């Protein structure tokens, strides 16, 4: 019987052989990460256990990205604790304040490769499925255990195959495909399962959009998301640094692999999507929404803070002005993305349009800092979650969309489809 790519990767990490969905395995971890929120708890467990050293100093990343640059004394303490631990144990990948948001950063550093098994004490660790890795979010205790043993316990998931046919409509990106999908299957539609994405649309999709899609698999309850590595992946990997001792492994699902379900979509049906409060599954096409005024727009996060996202936003904002009632906050995902955006003139475009450009941080995405909402305020964000109170006051509202919709709406002051916005002229409104 054929195996899925997810089964193959898991099998390769627990001694080989066929493993069936539902089986529990103790698997070898190629790489693990934790951040300024989840690492302190993992470190506490690590120390309580009395562990003297980590299993491998070059297979752990500690990323200070959530409440950084430290927003208050408590978060400064948390960061210090992580920093001290990293130095004490010689952890090679300590990414300090401003280096980037973990899920944008690690792939860019060449630390997530096809066929690898990666865990992270952060739910959006599923992002690396975009390069063809098995990657999944775990808790801090899992991270502590893995730091000591280099292992994680896992239940082998069933896979659901998603096939996207046809051609993308204008202004549609990976964000819209995944929002549409979550809207269709629901927030637990892929519960405990692997989402395997394929079809002509995926084959032509940029890496940026692939990352966005894999990133949000957790919003459908998935354990992991995976896209078979192809030429787009190979091109991307040529640009990232090679890491000693890490080679990756290209796996493909067998033609007779068994799926729990196969779901097919026609891209012609998919237009720019908006998720309304307070669920990422509560989606509607942007064109069907009118008169939803917004107070703030956030373009950034591990979902949509990559260079392609910033270019799209800049294309729309160029020569336009942000609506006088709107605050536009733009957060490049990593330092490298920030530099590229600077060199390409995107930062200038954002500032000239009236936007605020923040250093890389999770910031407002989790209601941390750098753009918290007051009671009754409404934000349109390119982030991945719009739960009650996610970005501030419990009575504020979060709408989710792609960077084009976000930029266009920032100009218009209400949620809008980007097609009405003309470059260099706000008169078209």
């Amino acid at each position, binding site marked *: 019987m054929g195996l899925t790519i997810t089964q193959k990767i898991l099998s390769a990490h627990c001694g080989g052989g066929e493993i069936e969905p539902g089986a529990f395995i103790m698997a070898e971890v190629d790489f693990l990460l934790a951040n300024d929120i989840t690492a302190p708890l993992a470190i506490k467990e690590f120390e309580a256990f009395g562990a003297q050293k980590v299993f491998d100093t070059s297979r752990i990343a500690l990323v200070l990205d959530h409440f950084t640059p430290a927003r208050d004394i408590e978060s400064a303490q948390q960061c210090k604790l992580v920093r001290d631990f990293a130095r004490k144990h010689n952890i090679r990948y300590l990414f300090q304040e401003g280096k980037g948001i973990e899920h944008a950063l690690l792939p860019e550093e060449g630390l997530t490769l096809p066929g690898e098994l990666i865990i992270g004490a952060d739910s959006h660790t599923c992002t690396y499925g975009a390069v063809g890795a098995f990657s999944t979010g*775990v*808790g801090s205790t899992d991270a502590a255990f893995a730091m000591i043993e280099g292992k994680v*316990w896992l239940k082998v998931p069933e896979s659901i195959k998603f096939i996207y046919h046809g051609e993308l409509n204008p202004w549609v990106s990976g964000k819209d495909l995944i929002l549409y999908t979550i809207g269709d299957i629901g927030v*637990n539609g892929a519960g405990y399962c692997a989402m395997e994405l394929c079809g002509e649309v995926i084959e032509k999709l940029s890496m940026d959009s692939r990352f966005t899609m894999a990133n949000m698999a957790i919003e459908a309850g998935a354990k992991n998301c995976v896209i078979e590595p192809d030429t787009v992946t190979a091109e991307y990997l040529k640009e990232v640094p090679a890491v000693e001792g890490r080679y990756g492994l290209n796996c493909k699902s067998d033609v007779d692999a068994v799926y729990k379900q196969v779901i097919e979509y026609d891209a012609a049906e998919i237009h720019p999507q908006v998720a309304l409060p307070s669920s990422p599954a509560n989606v509607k096409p942007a064109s069907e929404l009118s008169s939803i005024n917004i107070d703030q727009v956030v373009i950034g996060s591990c979902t949509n803070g990559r260079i392609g996202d910033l270019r799209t936003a800049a294309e729309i904002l160029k020569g336009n002005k942000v609506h006088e009632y709107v605050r536009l906050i733009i957060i490049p995902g990593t330092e490298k993305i920030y530099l590229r955006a600077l060199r390409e003139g995107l930062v200038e475009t954002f500032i000239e349009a009236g936007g605020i450009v923040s250093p890389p941080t999770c910031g407002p995405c989790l209601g*941390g800092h750098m753009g918290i909402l007051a009671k009754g305020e409404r934000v349109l964000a390119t982030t991945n979650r719009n739960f009650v109170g996610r970005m501030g006051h419990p009575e504020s509202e979060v709408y989710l969309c792609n960077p084009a919709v976000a930029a266009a709406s920032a100009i218009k002051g209400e949620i809008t489809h980007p097609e009405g916005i003309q470059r260099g002229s706000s008169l078209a409104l």
Partner: protein
Amino acid sequence: MITGKVHKFGDNINTDDIIPATYLVTTDEKELSKHCFETHSPGFNKKAEKGDVIAAGENFGCGSSREHAPRALKGLGISCVIAKSFARIFCRNAINIGLPIIECPDAADGMDEGNTVEIKFEEGMLYNKRTGDRYRFTPYPEFLHRIISAGGLMKYARRKAKNV
């Protein structure tokens, strides 16, 4: 066996509901428990008593990977969470920290706010003392049972280390 008073919750209770992100600057269970369900159900931390049980709908604990969520519940003294289904990471976090959870849709539906429930883990039996209803649940698979009976993943690891 445990006996506790039921607090009823709906579907898709997410980790931001259980513990808002802004309080994730501590790892202390007691400190976290002070803000448990703060925006979702203000006053819950005062209402909940040691040994109480949560009965919830589908997808309990969805959202972020923050282990602070089950830890906040543990800090509050919650002795078990019964739900129709659990979000994956919450489920593993609860197991890893030794917070008992039970997936049992009928029981989750059949219990109301303020009911008293008796849970016998070994027998896979839930008993609603108010209504007299009994529910069966599937005991944990062997692998997880070993982690849970050790009292969580780190204790399991320690036990294993000693045996070697």
